[in-house]
């Protein structure tokens, strides 16, 4: 890791940890006023994370595109960017960070334990397809993460509303009906970008490996993940799965994406998606 990258990476982790704690405090102690202040903290963490990415870019000459550490760094950036964007667009959605910030914190912690050495870009990654494929992969990860966060908030709010004295922290969030539609909207966003990611990956794979589909573990798992979200959309549109069931689906389905990004290469060392970066 570059010197400034390490500093900013750790700073962003500390800030996200504080922000995560702030959100939990806000919900547990029923203090909704804290949320906007904690969101500001997330923004500072995001700036630090951006600085870490720039420092790494300065040291290696390329954006962090591959390997578990770089997935965590850049993927986490997309998730937080999405969270801040939707929170900026609609203040009621600032609290989605209660789901995404802890997720990114875990990702960054995990990434830090992986190999963060500075390496030149592997030859196999030098193609325009990398940018299309990985960019859309992270967008879909961001979309699905927001769907998960909206699912978490939905379940918490629904539980709170069932109580005699609802937690005022949840009043800041959109109504349950809107949250339900937002879960679906984020799933749809993730599904569209996921589709582009898989198509772009297949075309790239043909030039790189000679086959657009080779049942590589990461490829296969991304297909499983795509199918799961496809089913989610069908269940919602055709079978009317809404609210609690949809929220649980959005939360559970994210596990398939996490496995695809981080899990497959941990248990299988035969994936072509290990790009020989030390």
């Amino acid at each position, binding site marked *: 890791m570059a010197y400034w990258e390490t500093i900013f990476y750790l700073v962003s982790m500390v800030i996200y940890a504080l922000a995560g704690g702030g959100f939990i405090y806000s919900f547990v102690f029923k203090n909704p006023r804290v949320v906007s202040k904690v969101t500001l903290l997330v923004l500072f963490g995001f700036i630090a994370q951006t600085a870490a990415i720039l420092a790494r870019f300065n040291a290696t000459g390329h954006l962090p595109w591959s390997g578990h550490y770089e997935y965590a760094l850049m993927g986490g950036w997309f998730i937080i960017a999405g969270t801040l964007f939707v929170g900026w667009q609609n203040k009621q959605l600032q609290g989605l960070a209660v789901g995404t910030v802890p997720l990114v914190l875990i990702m960054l912690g995990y990434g830090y334990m992986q190999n963060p050495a500075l390496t030149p870009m592997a030859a196999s990654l*030098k193609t325009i397809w990398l940018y299309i494929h990985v960019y859309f992969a992270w967008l879909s990860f961001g979309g699905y993460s927001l769907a998960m966060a909206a699912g978490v908030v939905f379940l918490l709010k629904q539980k709170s509303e069932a109580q005699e004295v609802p937690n005022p922290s949840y009043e800041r969030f959109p109504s349950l009906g809107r949250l339900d539609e937002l879960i679906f909207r984020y799933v749809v966003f993730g599904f569209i970008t996921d589709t582009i990611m898989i198509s772009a990956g297949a075309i790239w794979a043909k030039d*790189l490996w000679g086959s657009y589909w080779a049942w590589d573990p990461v490829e296969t798992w991304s297909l499983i993940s795509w199918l799961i979200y*496809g089913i989610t959309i069908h269940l919602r549109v055709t079978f009317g799965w809404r609210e609690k069931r949809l929220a649980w689906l959005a939360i559970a389905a994210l596990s398939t994406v996490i496995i695809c990004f981080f899990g497959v290469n941990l248990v299988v060392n035969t994936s072509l998606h290990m790009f020989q970066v030390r």
Partner: protein
Amino acid sequence: MFTKLYKFLSSLRFTIWLICLLGVIFAAGLWVPQKRLLKTIYLDWQQKSPDLVAFLDSFGLTTIYTSPITVTLWLLFFLNLSLVLWQRIPVIKSRIVLSESKIVDPESAGGYPFHSYYPLPDGLNEDKIFAALRKHGFTILGNGNMFYGVKNRLSPIAFALFHVSFFLILFGGIIGVYTEFRGYVELAQGETFQGELERYKDDPGPKLPEIGSLPDVSFTIKSIVPRVVRNTPTGISIMLVDSRGKSHEVGINVPYNTNHTSVMFKHLGVAPLFILKDSSGKEIGGAYMKLDVLKGGPDHFTLGGLLFATRFYPDYALVDGKPVTRSMEFNNQVFVISVERDGKKIAEGTVPKNGTMTFEGYRLEMQEMPFWVRFYVNKQRGLSIVYTGFALATIGVIWRLLFFRREIIGSIREKEGQLCLVVAGRSEYYKSLAEDEFVKLFSGIVRKTDER
């Protein structure tokens, strides 16, 4: 009975079951080593657990992606897809058609969750309202008394487009399977290849096409220039000259494509020209030896009845008396060679690039050291159909899920003594979020919100 079966086969419930089962099969394929994909691991596993492997083999679980179970599931999937598509075509047609019957009273119409009315300011008439709605992408039918508007009317076609894309991918894939040729060929700098079948590697041997001809390729390798920076391969440039004298550069991610054939770089090695001479200086033998040593492993060659076991150090150094490479960069290229005669080691030494090694009256000279490359040659038809399928799938998903339909019905009529725009609206997928959109739309048009 038949109707019941038809209903089940064409149901979305069945689609979901099939997708779940296919998902389980795909996941199982990740855990059970697959014969074709992980041959070495599979053979090793077979040796360790022959009974278990035989048992799994019998169910086709070690060739799971082409096993009868998977093929059956795919067939059922496409049967289901066809039936669903067939059933949906009339629905799609009826949804996209613009019909007067869709013009209904906004105050009494069912199925429209959004209802509102907006007092019309002076000067805002039917024409201006319709023009504003058209500007927002609505197609309008009717007149001020009662009208119907629809945005993204053709969006249901995207459903068909998305599902047709699966058939294109299937069709292109089948053509690909039957016309596919796969083979590996190893060529050193200066060598010419004209697609001769016997020059393809035996292990793994070439896969011949069921239909169609062998790859029609012909080229000579002019140069091979690898690039390594800090232990990471950062590129390779292989210059080919085809039979018409035209140059092509091949690299990682940059195959040479010709006549439905792709020639892809897969592996790099060194092919030093070794000459073995006796004590009088007479040449005993010599050849370019294609050695696969760049990843640090051993390789060997024979010359003059002697076996030469080699290891290659691209950035050679001696640390504590042991040869090591400081990096993978080609800074100080040295071969460490052990010479054997009849299984007995008779000498050991080093040969730097363009250097020599003497032993027992022999002299081993390295006169030059070009590289060799392993190319993966793949010929396949139907690729353009598959890519069209990918494109249609992407367009279909974007079109259907982003540009979904919004329908409005409205009327300009007097209400509570004021001329009002009375409207009702509905949207696919969203109710609450669409309400926001409708409020914004109509408020924008009348510039004054007066929600009920």
